[in-house]
């Protein structure tokens, strides 16, 4: 592909939507169900709803700011305008670090899941290395490749999640969803805010905005992706809580696997959890590819690299090493729950909104409020 073609690489709306849906829905395989179950008990299913609504509002707000003031600019370029080069580097480093830690945590959680469920005799290093190789390979393909892959695998995710929910129908006990408010409205709302960082749509929007084929469809992309992923998470949580009592749901780290193990539709359709590996692998690979791409892309933008690709192998190795650092799974879960999930909202919501708001004010004060940085944005755009 020629350089100019790469510079103009744009992702269609459908593929972007698929990527965002998979990015958020992958949390169903991770520790998110455990934490919201601990927090909300029977009302855990409400937390994705509140988080989704909050994300939707913030998404529209950020999209409005970008469209009005920073068309064709990403968060690093906005930061450069507002805080100068060093400020932009600092902000990009914060986001990159978040993405790197997120990649490392997901990698470790995912490989631990695989080792503990289907490959008990295989060394975790091999499982993790193979996984990271695949992720690195996808990242090398760029955001276009990641989103296209997400679009191809989205039907598998949708069918798989719905199948897991429906095939446990003979274990459903709807009365286990009562009392409706679980630990109480206040606790549920607090949990919704705390764990809303799984909806990284807002942060991703500020990064991928220049790469969307048709930015006028961004609202639609955001709406569909947030609503669909919220529905999937809600469906999964409802099913999970109808199958297992609330007190038990907070004790397991792999809700989907427990559900899949329960499937028993006669002697020929039982113990199908192994089949769902295809689901976990595809979704987790796409999610980690997004975070790793975000990390390398932001670093590249901040430091003015002509392309981010040479950094990919180093970042793959770094995230793999970080992921393997903790001695055991429990440490990873605690780290994820304590820092990434609980305080992640600062990175995924607060900082991008703050940067964009300050940027908008600065532009308004300079009098060039509605001018957009299209030309400069295009000039600075990396090869994606």
């Amino acid at each position, binding site marked *: 592909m020629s350089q100019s073609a790469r510079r103009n690489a744009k992702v269609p709306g459908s593929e972007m939507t698929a990527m965002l849906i998979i990015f958020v829905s992958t949390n169903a395989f991770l520790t998110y169900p455990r934490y919201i179950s601990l927090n909300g008990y029977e009302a855990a299913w409400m937390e994705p709803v509140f988080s989704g609504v909050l994300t939707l509002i913030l998404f529209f707000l950020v999209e409005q700011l970008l469209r009005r003031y920073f068309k064709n600019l990403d968060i690093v370029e906005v930061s450069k305008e507002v805080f100068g080069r060093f400020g932009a580097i600092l902000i990009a480093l914060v986001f990159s670090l978040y993405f790197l830690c997120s990649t490392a945590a997901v990698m470790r959680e995912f490989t631990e899941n695989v080792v503990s469920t289907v490959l008990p005799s295989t060394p975790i290093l091999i499982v993790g290395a193979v996984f990271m190789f695949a992720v690195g390979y996808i990242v090398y393909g760029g955001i276009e*490749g990641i989103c296209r892959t997400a679009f191809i*695998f989205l039907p598998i995710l949708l069918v798989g999640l719905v199948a897991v929910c429906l095939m446990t129908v003979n274990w459903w006990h709807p009365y286990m969803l009562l009392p409706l408010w679980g630990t109480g409205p206040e606790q549920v709302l607090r949990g919704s805010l705390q764990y809303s960082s799984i909806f990284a749509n807002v942060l991703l929007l500020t990064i991928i905005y220049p790469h969307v084929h048709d930015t006028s469809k961004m609202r639609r992309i955001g709406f569909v992706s947030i609503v669909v992923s919220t529905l999937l998470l809600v469906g999964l949580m409802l099913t999970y809580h109808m199958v297992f009592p609330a007190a038990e749901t907070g004790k397991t780290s792999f809700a989907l696997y427990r559900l899949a193990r329960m499937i028993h539709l006669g002697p020929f359709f039982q113990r199908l959890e192994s089949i769902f590996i295809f689901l976990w692998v595809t979704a987790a690979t796409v999610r980690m590819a997004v975070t790793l791409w975000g990390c390398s892309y932001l670093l590249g933008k901040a430091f003015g690299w002509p392309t981010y690709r040479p950094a990919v192998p180093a970042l793959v190795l770094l995230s793999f090493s970080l992921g393997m650092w903790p001695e055991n799974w429990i440490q990873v879960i605690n780290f994820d729950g304590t820092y990434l999930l609980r305080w992640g909202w600062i990175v995924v919501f607060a900082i991008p909104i703050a940067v964009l708001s300050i940027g908008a004010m600065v532009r308004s004060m300079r009098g060039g409020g509605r001018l957009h940085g299209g030309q400069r944005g295009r000039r600075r755009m990396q090869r994606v």
Partner: protein
Amino acid sequence: MDMSFTGALKRLLTVDDSMLDDQFSLADDDPSEPADTYGETPQPETVNFTTAENKTDTSKKPVSMRTFLRRATKEYEEAVEKAHVGQDDEIECDIDEMKRRLERFFHLPQNKDIVIREFRVGVDTKAPWRGMAVFVDGLSDKNVINSAILEPLMILTHVSEENPRRTLEYVVEKLLPSNQSQIVNKWSEAVANILTGSTVLFLDRCNGALVMETKGWEHRSVSTPQTENVVRGSQDAFTENFRANTGLVRARLRTEHLVTEIHSVGNLARTDVAIMYIHGVTNPKLVREVRRRISQIDVDFVLDSGMLEQFIEDRPSMLIPQVMATERPDRVAASLAEGYVALFVGNSTYCLIVPVVLWSLVHSSEDSNIRFLPGTFMRLIRWIALFTALLLPGLYVAVTNYHAEMLPTDLMLAIAGSREQVPFPVVVEVLLMEFAIELIREAGIRIPSVIGPTIGIVGALIIGQSAVQAGIVSPLLVIVVATTALASFTVPNYELSMGIRIMRFAFLIAGAVLGFYGIAILFVVYVVRLSMLKSFGVPILSPIAPSSGASRDVLLRGPLWSMNKRPSFLYPLRSWRQKPMSRPWSAPTRKSTGKEGGET
């Protein structure tokens, strides 16, 4: 007896290395000596083909890549230039000089394929007018040469006047009844035409040559397809005749907008390459790209479409073909009507269609000829077969090694029971059987047809029954491997089928090492690879990824009357292939469009 004993003893005790001395070696040959020096035959003017670079190339001194490329390019260009030395010149007026040139170009008189027939024009010409007809024995039709060239010029021509118009134009207009003739002025054109089977006429004091169409070599007639058989559809396939092949397509697609451009590829020997497209439908950018890729092929010789394919496709290292090779004229005609470009290569029995998308490799030309429900069913079967051929052995190994719990207990016990006598691990067992199947497949192609039936006996009895009885493989595995083989034969495209055969082993190893996890990871990686792959600028997973909302003729077969538009990924100049309401006579159609009662 005594002598023979002594001789034998002597031979035993002495070292005789004369055999080694007698061995022929190209390395010791003197390259300056021409290849055609023999006897007392007079030698034509020769060109020394050994360049200085070639002589010094034997040194193993490492050079930089840039130097290597520069040197190799220069060497190649020099060699090409020397091979055609003098051919860029204009044709002379003097017939003796013409003959000398021809002798040098064609290495006469050693080269017996080239015939130079010298004659005099007219029966009673006062001033002799010498001429010669040059053609390749075996490529040209001798009857045409005799009756349409030599006879009119030598017997039927009466040049009675003293000073007739001795020009080629006069010969074309008045003397020769050839249906296709062309005057050329350069030696390169004359030589190229002689080599394609035309007869080239040289006349004294005419600075040009007359090319007459006399192609007529032996070739196979049009017969049934060998690899793309169908039940419903035409039963003819391309043959080894370039013009017959283009004619087969044109006979189906009778439009004046069907354009056939002919180019030549090859520096040592030229091969005709025809680019066929429909003007006004096919995107001109696509045609330009095809033309550009073909014109930039700088090789000595391209024998077949399979070779050309590797020079023009985007990523020849991929297992998935990025060019569709077909031997069916109806498929080519249908593709051209959609907006694709077709390529015919020399005497190849396969035509190339570009660009290609993965889904069309699973389509068959029969699909359009049957109604959409059976067509959809057949496509579904093919898709299932494709995934079976790709994944079944790997899944079997993964299930038996890592995921036995997902099998129903009875089935698991049956598998365990059948494997009780087998000493190998499952993966070794599968590899053995797969290897045997690959052997049968390859032997089935290479085996002489008279002993062909033995392959069935060997395959069925030895590989199947005997291997099970000997306890080398389990009966269930034979079923798995046989199903896989059967499924791979269902894939309509041979190149895709080959790719799947090879990829199957990768999935087998992945399944053996990491179970479903390994298979899933490999699958994801390969899909990513495919999603980034393009064929002539078109993503190979189009129109699904990227989604372009194209017709329903992708995974399944949509109704013909509802597939109104051409594939959007081709960006055709005419996107509508039919009216939105293509069955206006039908009552349900009229009802659905609200036109019921509008006309009676």
